[in-house]
C-alpha cells in the first residue's frame, strides 16, 4: 500500500441542470429526441439573435453553490470563450471567466469503512455555462463525415471545479459520490451519467520524493470516463503510468505542456488525445449580449432556506436520534431523501431505530433491487412495516416468521395483523403459551429431570416440540417460561 509517490487529483464536474428549457432560449432540454429537432435561431447561433437567461437555471446554480459552502459574489457576468469546433455553431461558448457566480467553497467527504480520514475537498468555483452539441462519427462504417446534432446546444451546465485536494482514486470516487448525492437531494440535476447529465474530467499528477527533494510529474487531464468506477480505474492506471514514465524519462512538471488523455474502457488504459490547437487561448471577453446579474442577500438567504436537510446533517441526525452506526446511516442516506423519510417513519412506528434499519437494509432494499423500483413504489407502508417490526420485537413473531408475514403484506397490501390472520397465525397470549409449556413439561418428565440436575440445554428439545405444535411461538420465550415453571415446581 505504501507507494513511493503521492497522487494529486482535482476534478471538474459538469452537471446538467434540471430545467425544462435551455439556458438562453426556449427550446426543450429533453434527452433522446430525434437529432436537430430542439434548436432555434438563438441556440444555433444565427446572426441577430439575442440570448436571455433562464431564471430557473440561475436559481438552481445559486442553490447548489450555497450547498457547497461557496462565497457568492454580489455581482456576476458572462463571457465568451472562443474556439472553433463543429458542435459549437456560434464559434464561442457563453461561460463565466473572471467573475463566476460562486467560489471558495468545500464539500466534506468521509468513508464509512474508514479507508481514509474524513476531509474537506475545496471547491475553487462553480459557474453557469451552456453546453455544446454532439458530434457522431461512425468509424466502423468508414464514412468520411461526422454528423452533428445540435439538440444539446445551449443546455444549462453548472461546472464545479475542485481544488487538487484528493490524494487517491478512492477519495476521488468518494467526492463524486457525495457530490452526486448532494445534487440529488437538492433536485438540481438528475445526474444521469449515461445520458451525459453528469460528466467528469480529472487532473492528476504525482509528487515523488527523491534524494534531490520532492518533484512533481506533468499534469495530465483525463477524459471519457463514463462511470464513477471508470474514474477510479482510470486514475489508478494513470498514476501508475505517470510513475513509470517518470522512471523512464525523468520528465517533470513544466518540461512538457499539459496533455489530455482519454480513458479507453475496453482496453482499461488511458491514451493521449490530440490537443486542440492553441486551445488554451480562448480569448475570453464579456458577452455584450447578456447583462450581469447582481445577486442580493435576500436571494442567497432564500436559496439557503430552500436547501432542506442535506446528506451530511441527515447522517448525523440518524446516528444520534436513532442510535445506528455510521455505516447504517450512510446506507440509508445514500438511498435518497424518500428512503430517509421512510426509515424515520418505520423507526418511530416501532420505537427502535436499529431493527428498523436492519429490516430496511436486509429486506426492503433487496426487494427494491430485485424489482428495480424506488421506495415510493414499495408496496408496504412505513407504518405497516413499523407495526410488523413491533410485533417481532414484542416476541409475538420470530424474525423468520416475520419475513413470511412481510412477503404476504407485500403481495396482498394487508397490514401486519391482517396478513397474520390470513396466514392462520394467531397471537399466542401469555397464558396460552404457559399452557403449552406446561403440557410439554408434563409429557416429558425425563427432560424436566435433566434440567433439575442442572442441564439447562435439555430444554432445546422442548422448543422444537413447541414449534411443531404452534409455528408462531417465540423460542426464547418458551425457554424462559419452561425454566420458570420447573423452578416453581422445585
Amino acid at each position, binding site marked *: 500500500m505504501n507507494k513511493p509517490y503521492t497522487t494529486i487529483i482535482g476534478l471538474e464536474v459538469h452537471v446538467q441542470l434540471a*430545467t*425544462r*428549457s435551455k439556458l438562453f432560449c*426556449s*427550446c*426543450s432540454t429533453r434527452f433522446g429526441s*430525434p*437529432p*436537430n*429537432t*430542439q*434548436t*432555434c*435561431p438563438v441556440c*444555433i447561433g444565427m446572426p441577430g439573435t439575442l440570448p*436571455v*437567461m*433562464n*431564471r*430557473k*437555471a*440561475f436559481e438552481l446554480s445559486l442553490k447548489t453553490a450555497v450547498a457547497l459552502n461557496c462565497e457568492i459574489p454580489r*455581482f456576476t*457576468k458572462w463571457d465568451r470563450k*472562443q474556439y*472553433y*469546433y*463543429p*458542435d459549437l455553431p456560434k464559434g464561442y461558448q457563453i461561460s463565466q471567466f473572471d*467573475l463566476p457566480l460562486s467560489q471558495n467553497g468545500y464539500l466534506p467527504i468521509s468513508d464509512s469503512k474508514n479507508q481514509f480520514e474524513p476531509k474537506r475537498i475545496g471547491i475553487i468555483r462553480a459557474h453557469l455555462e451552456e453546453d455544446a452539441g454532439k*458530434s*457522431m*462519427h461512425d*468509424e466502423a462504417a468508414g464514412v*468520411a*463525415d*461526422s*454528423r*452533428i*446534432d*445540435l439538440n444539446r446546444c445551449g443546455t444549462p451546465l453548472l461546472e464545479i471545479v475542485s481544488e487538487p485536494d484528493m490524494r487517491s482514486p478512492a477519495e476521488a470516487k468518494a467526492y463524486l459520490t457525495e457530490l452526486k448525492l448532494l445534487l440529488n437531494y437538492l433536485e438540481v440535476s438528475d445526474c444521469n451519467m449515461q445520458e451525459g447529465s453528469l460528466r467528469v474530467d480529472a487532473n492528476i499528477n504525482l509528487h515523488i520524493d527523491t534524494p534531490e527533494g520532492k518533484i512533481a510529474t506533468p499534469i495530465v487531464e483525463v477524459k*471519457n470516463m463514463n462511470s464513477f468506477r471508470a474514474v477510479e480505474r482510470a486514475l489508478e492506471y494513470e498514476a501508475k503510468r505517470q510513475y513509470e514514465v517518470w522512471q523512464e524519462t525523468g520528465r517533470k512538471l513544466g518540461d512538457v505542456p499539459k496533455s489530455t488523455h*482519454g480513458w479507453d474502457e475496453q482496453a482499461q488504459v488511458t*491514451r*493521449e*488525445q*490530440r490537443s486542440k*490547437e*492553441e486551445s488554451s*487561448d480562448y*480569448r475570453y471577453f*464579456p458577452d*455584450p449580449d*447578456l*447583462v*450581469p*446579474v*447582481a445577486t442580493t442577500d435576500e436571494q442567497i438567504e432564500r436559496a439557503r432556506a430552500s436547501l432542506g436537510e442535506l446528506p451530511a446533517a441527515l447522517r448525523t441526525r440518524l446516528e444520534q436520534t436513532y442510535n445506528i452506526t455510521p455505516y447504517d446511516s450512510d446506507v440509508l442516506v445514500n438511498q435518497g431523501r424518500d428512503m430517509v423519510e421512510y426509515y424515520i417513519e418505520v423507526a418511530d412506528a416501532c420505537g427502535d431505530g436499529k431493527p428498523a434499519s436492519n429490516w430496511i437494509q436486509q429486506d426492503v432494499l433487496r426487494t427494491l433491487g430485485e424489482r428495480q423500483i424506488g421506495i415510493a413504489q414499495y408496496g408496504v407502508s412505513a407504518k405497516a412495516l413499523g407495526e410488523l417490526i413491533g410485533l417481532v420485537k414484542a416476541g409475538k413473531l420470530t424474525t423468520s416468521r416475520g419475513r413470511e408475514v412481510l412477503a404476504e403484506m407485500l403481495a396482498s397490501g394487508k397490514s401486519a395483523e391482517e396478513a397474520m390472520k390470513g396466514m392462520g397465525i394467531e397471537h399466542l397470549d401469555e397464558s396460552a403459551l404457559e399452557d403449552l409449556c406446561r403440557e410439554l413439561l408434563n409429557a416429558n418428565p425425563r427432560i424436566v429431570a435433566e434440567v433439575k440436575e442442572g442441564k439447562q440445554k435439555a430444554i432445546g428439545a422442548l422448543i422444537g416440540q413447541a414449534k411443531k405444535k404452534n409455528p408462531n411461538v417465540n423460542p426464547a420465550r418458551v425457554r424462559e417460561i419452561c425454566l420458570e415453571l420447573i423452578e416453581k415446581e422445585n
Partner: protein
Amino acid sequence: MPISREQVEKVSLLGRLLFSDNELDKMTCQLSDILEYMDLLAEVDTEGVEPMAHALDISDVFRDDEVRPSLDREAALAGAPHRDDECYLVPAVLGEL
C-alpha cells in the same frame, strides 16, 4: 507597431483564417492602425471611475423556464452546406492521436 506580424499570424490561426504573406503584412499594418487609434481612449482621465462590465447600466434580465416550439428540422438544416436527413455533416471529427 502595437501588434507584431507573429501575433497576427497567431490570431489568424485561432480565427481559422488563412492569409498569404502579402495579406499578413497588410493585416499587421491595418490592425496596428486600429489599435493605435483605440489608444486615444487611454488619454481619457478615468481616475475614480468604476469599471463597467456592460455598456448598459442594467442587470438581472431573466426569462421564465418555459418551453416554446423549436425550429422545424428542415428549416434548421436548410442553410447547411452539407447535410443528411437528420444532421449537419462536417469533415471527420476524431479525438485520439
